[in-house]
């Protein structure tokens, strides 16, 4: 339990850092965001509106700590300010509209690619020294492919040339958004290609990690002993080798998830998929700083929660973390 408490404390600190960083970035970066805004929005917006925006943005002449308390207070009321690009929609509303799409897409694809990747990694480790070693260069290549480029290629092949999947969007706009089979199947259909992109671009990393770890664990005495016990190969591989080799994959989840989230955001842009990635892209294009920050905050918090979940899973996988009573 102590292990868990320590982790919770650490993630609470990280969450606080993300919140504070979010407050500091616009105030500490070279150049004042309001002037930056005026510069970039020149001619597109009335000066009076500009001033109002700056104020809604929370950048005032107050001392920094007063601004910080106001910021925290607003945050806890779920107030992230008003969007500039979609004026006057509250940022929180836009963020909450975009979040489910990304959670669904990234969540499902991450699970799929983790399962495929670790499974394949174990198989490659078991069969090392044979033909399977030749899969490594291909996997390395796949691991280095940029997500968005993979998306472009898939769109070119499957949507433009073959016409099997839609080019963009998350669902057929002619269907009512409701919990109907029609709508759900349309969401699944539109989501397939983005999901395939993310799985292809991310599973190779899990394979390579898992293969290396399993190969290392296969050299341990307890695996040799399992073999000497006359246990069937599958049992040795799953209960002894893979069961131990997966532990670093779970702890390394943070590093991997960050990359997947980053990659999926770009994938969303290609597919005009209405998740946080695409919304962030739009926010950047519109110089919509409040929206940018709101999105950054929600992505960070989501990743932090995912990491905490991974650590809880780890406690179940490794009895040694449960040792401290």
């Amino acid at each position, binding site marked *: 339990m102590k292990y868990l408490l320590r982790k919770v404390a650490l993630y609470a600190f990280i969450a606080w*850092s993300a919140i504070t960083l979010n407050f500091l970035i616009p105030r500490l970066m*070279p150049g004042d965001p309001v002037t930056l805004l005026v510069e970039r929005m020149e001619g597109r917006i009335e000066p009076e509106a500009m001033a109002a925006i700056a104020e809604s943005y929370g950048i005032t002449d107050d001392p920094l700590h007063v601004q910080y308390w106001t910021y925290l207070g607003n945050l806890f009321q779920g107030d992230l300010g008003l969007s500039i690009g979609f004026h006057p929609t509250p940022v929180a509303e836009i963020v909450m509209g975009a979040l489910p799409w990304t959670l669904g897409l990234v969540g499902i694809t991450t699970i799929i690619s983790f399962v495929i990747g670790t499974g394949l990694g174990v198989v490659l480790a078991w069969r090392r020294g044979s033909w399977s070693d030749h899969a*490594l260069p291909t996997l390395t290549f796949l*691991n*280095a492919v940029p997500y968005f480029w993979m998306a*472009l290629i898939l769109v070119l092949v499957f949507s433009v040339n073959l016409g099997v999947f839609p080019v963009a969007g998350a669902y057929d706009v002619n269907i009512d958004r409701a919990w109907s089979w029609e709508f759900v199947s349309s969401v699944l259909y539109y989501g397939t290609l983005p999901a395939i992109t993310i799985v292809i671009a991310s599973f190779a990393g899990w394979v390579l990690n898992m293969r290396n770890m399993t190969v290392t664990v296969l050299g341990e005495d307890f695996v040799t*002993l399992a073999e000497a*016990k006359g246990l069937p190969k599958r049992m040795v591989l799953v209960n002894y080798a893979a069961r131990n080799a997966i532990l670093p994959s779970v702890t390394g989840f943070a590093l991997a998830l960050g990359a997947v989230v980053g990659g999926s955001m770009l994938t969303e842009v290609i597919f005009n998929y209405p998740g946080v990635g695409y919304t962030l892209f739009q926010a950047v294009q519109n110089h919509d700083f409040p929206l940018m920050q709101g999105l950054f905050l929600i992505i960070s918090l989501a990743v932090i929660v995912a990491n905490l979940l991974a650590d809880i899973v780890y406690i179940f996988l490794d009895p040694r973390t449960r*040792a401290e009573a």
Partner: protein
Amino acid sequence: MRLRSWLPTSGKVLAGLVIVVVFALVAIVGPMVAQYGPRASGPEVLAPPSAAHWFGTTQTGQDVFAQFVYGARVSLAVGVFAGVVSQVVSIVVGVIGGYFRGLVDDGMYILTAVFLVMPGMPLLIVLTGYLPSRGMISVAVVIAITSWAGSARVLRAQTMSLRRRDFVEAARATGESRVRIIVSEIMPNALPLIASGFLFSVITGILSEAGLSFLGLGSLTSTSWGTMLYFAQNAQAFLIGAWWWFVPPGLAIAIIGAGLALINFGIDEYANPRLRTGKSRAKSAPAPLAAATAEEPHSPVPDQEPQIRPGGSQADPVIEVAGLTVDYDTAEGRVHAVKDVSLTVRRGELLGLAGESGSGKSTLTNTITRLLRPPAEVTGGSVTYHRRGTGAQQEPVDLLHLPADELRRFRWTELSIVFQSAMNALNPVMRISAQFDDVLRVHRPQMRPAARLELARTMLTRVGIDPERVSAYPHELSGGMKQRVAIAIALVCDPDVIVMDEPTTALDLLVQREVLDQVMALQEEFGFAIIFTTHDLSLLLEVSDTIAVMQQGRLVEYGAAMDVYTDPRHPYTQTLLRSLSDLGALV
């Protein structure tokens, strides 16, 4: 010839180096040979690849090849620059935190965790979103800021393990200063990690730059692979089928990324020999042999005839080794790890196998247990197991040619093993009960779960452990208890032979004595034969019925323990006994 010896042995590393060198050349030389400027527009718009435009042209008639080679320069430069900056940060944070520990380390650890968990790309987007002017340098610095944490964490762990190593303590005892210890003792050993971290950050840098530029957040005034993709995307190149515009930059990113990762493979394999594949794997000498090659030059070569006398038991043979030779293929050629060894293990006896490091005793037991791994190979001789038949009859089994499924049935029911270090021989994530249970489920399929658990508890009682500990995990037991558990597991199927490979070496004298007494009592009770290996000859002389002494792969002396002790005949055995007596072990 000189050049060949410089080339890396691993094909993967070689391929990676070739890729990286080719791209470096493209980046350096490409712009000099390109016929067009990267931004210069020509009359031909969206032309497919041709002799005039190797990679075709863009929507505004720019030459894609020119953009590609200029882009290579910018993309690689950003990647390398970001890699250098992020590696410097991670070395400072990781090595200093890992070496000094305490509050400094706590601070660095939390800082690393923050940057590790916070997703890089969104942070990157927000940070660049605020950059007043986006030159490639500031983009590279921002990339470095978001990407140093991963390798800092790895370096910290490595430094922490290195600073506990004896050579660091020895350097301190010599009087070496802290700075010198970090720079000259720790850093060189962390070099593979630093190199691999650097390559990884270069990949991250190239990918991040491409991603940022693709979103229009990079420096749009300079040409990189990312900005090429940005303009291609803006012009809907993939909808109009202008594949030549966006395929080259993306493919290039993937290939150079793969190239760098392949070099990283080589570094990983260098640092962790178990990962090696193919040729490079065969070249690494196996551990027992590596010890043998660097062995003390003083020991007399066993040119004398082996001294074979009757063993200390007259029972029926249970295992017979005849003329066994085991070879290893190494870079320097074939080496005999075991050479023409013949010996007999009799029912219910304790055969002590003595020998110093590199004597081949582990290779011999691994052959008997069929746990020999390539590149070790049996090139001659046989190992016969005499299976108990009905009555007095025995059925000979050729162990070396036992088919896989028969071998699996033979294992543990007729021959089981106790390893030297029980800490590593028990699966750390399984309860003790489960490690009994899987054996029984496989070898005693008719047993019910409750009976299996009951048997596990009984076996624990037999070796003097509270049966309640059956639900414990290995880390909850002391070293001596783990070794007892390992012995209990070895006994659970009532085998005829147990191979004990240095079973008490890792234990304290008092614990060793308890475990030994327990083993002797169990042997009395169950009547199994033991093949007991250790380098501790005085221990063997005390407990064995028969002793076999090995030196450099050969059997030099075999006989009843007391005969060997009171009247050693081979000069090597005599040397061993004399050393023991000089060391005060036989007083």
